[in-house]
């Protein structure tokens, strides 16, 4: 069964889309089939990082929701486009056209939509991971995506606004019993080296920190012109992101192993 992950943050600009794109190619490098879905409906941009033109992205999630195309029309396989040696990456984009954005904001998605998309991707394409890149904040559609997913990856900067907002988000997720993990992004270099930083953050957010990504000038200068890890595979950011990908694999595999052990005991 495909594992669904949602990448979320309380505030914008935390690096959700960058994280989604980089995580997807690294999971593929680890042999997985990954689908990424741009659910940031008011400001979609994942296709920019993947270097997918609007001409290539003939149909979007918006078209599918309004019955203008078949499901296969919105699934783009990017494996060859990204020159990935292993695994696969599929992408489902959202429209950047203001008239489409306004319509979907007004009418929203439904919780059934997420299951439907994940199920189609699993059955039709055999994907192992479905990653939803979401709109920031505590809006209903984003929270529905969080509730519909197996794992939430909460992205935050070491900024008081982010910390406060992520704390509030974690309180909501706790009430719903959702499994969430934290990724600290753009951490000031001196703080990134503090060995007790992950445990301090885990203590307050009450979710395990699975990665600490320092602020790197090079990532900022890259300016979303492609997936950073593919352009700079030896960079420390890419190494850190690979650790996060491996951690995510391990965490989601352990759950499966626990289920298998239960079967063996019986």
């Amino acid at each position, binding site marked *: 069964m495909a594992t669904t992950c949602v990448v979320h943050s309380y505030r914008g600009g935390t690096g959700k889309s960058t994280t989604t794109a980089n995580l997807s190619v690294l999971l593929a490098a680890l042999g997985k089939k990954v689908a990424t879905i741009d659910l940031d409906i008011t400001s979609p941009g994942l296709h920019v990082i993947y270097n997918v033109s609007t001409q290539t992205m003939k149909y979007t999630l918006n078209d599918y929701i309004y019955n203008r195309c078949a499901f296969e029309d919105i699934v783009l396989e990017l494996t060859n486009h990204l020159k990935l040696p292993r695994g696969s990456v599929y992408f489902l984009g959202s429209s950047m056209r203001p008239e489409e954005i306004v319509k979907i904001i007004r009418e929203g998605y439904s919780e059934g939509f997420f299951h439907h998309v994940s199920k189609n991707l699993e059955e039709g394409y055999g994907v192992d991971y479905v990653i939803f890149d979401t709109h920031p904040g505590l809006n*209903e559609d984003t*929270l529905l995506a969080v509730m519909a997913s197996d794992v939430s990856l909460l992205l935050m900067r070491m900024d008081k606004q982010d910390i406060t907002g992520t704390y509030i988000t974690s309180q909501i997720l706790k009430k719903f019993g959702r499994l969430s993990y934290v990724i600290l992004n753009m951490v000031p270099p001196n703080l990134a080296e503090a060995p007790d930083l992950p445990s301090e953050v885990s203590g307050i957010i009450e979710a395990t920190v699975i990665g600490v990504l320092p602020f790197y000038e090079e990532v900022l200068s890259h300016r979303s012109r492609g997936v950073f890890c593919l352009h700079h595979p030896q960079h420390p950011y890419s190494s850190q992101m690979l650790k996060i990908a491996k951690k995510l694999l391990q965490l989601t595999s352990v759950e499966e192993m626990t289920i298998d052990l239960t079967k063996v005991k019986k």
Partner: protein
Amino acid sequence: MSVTRRTYFTSVESDKDLAMRKRLRDLMSNMETNTEEIENIISSFETRLENISKRLDSLEDRVSRLEKKSSLL
């Protein structure tokens, strides 16, 4: 061109969807958030972060001084 929204699921699933939305709205409406308590928690955390940062700066200074001393030897 059709402008009808696609239906993904049966009426049973539609009811489930509406129930989930209601649950989410009810939960958030009834959270009784104590903003003062949150501010205290975050302030306390910020103080701990500040201490961690100062400790690291102090360590860096010491390492820097040690390096200077050893270069003179």
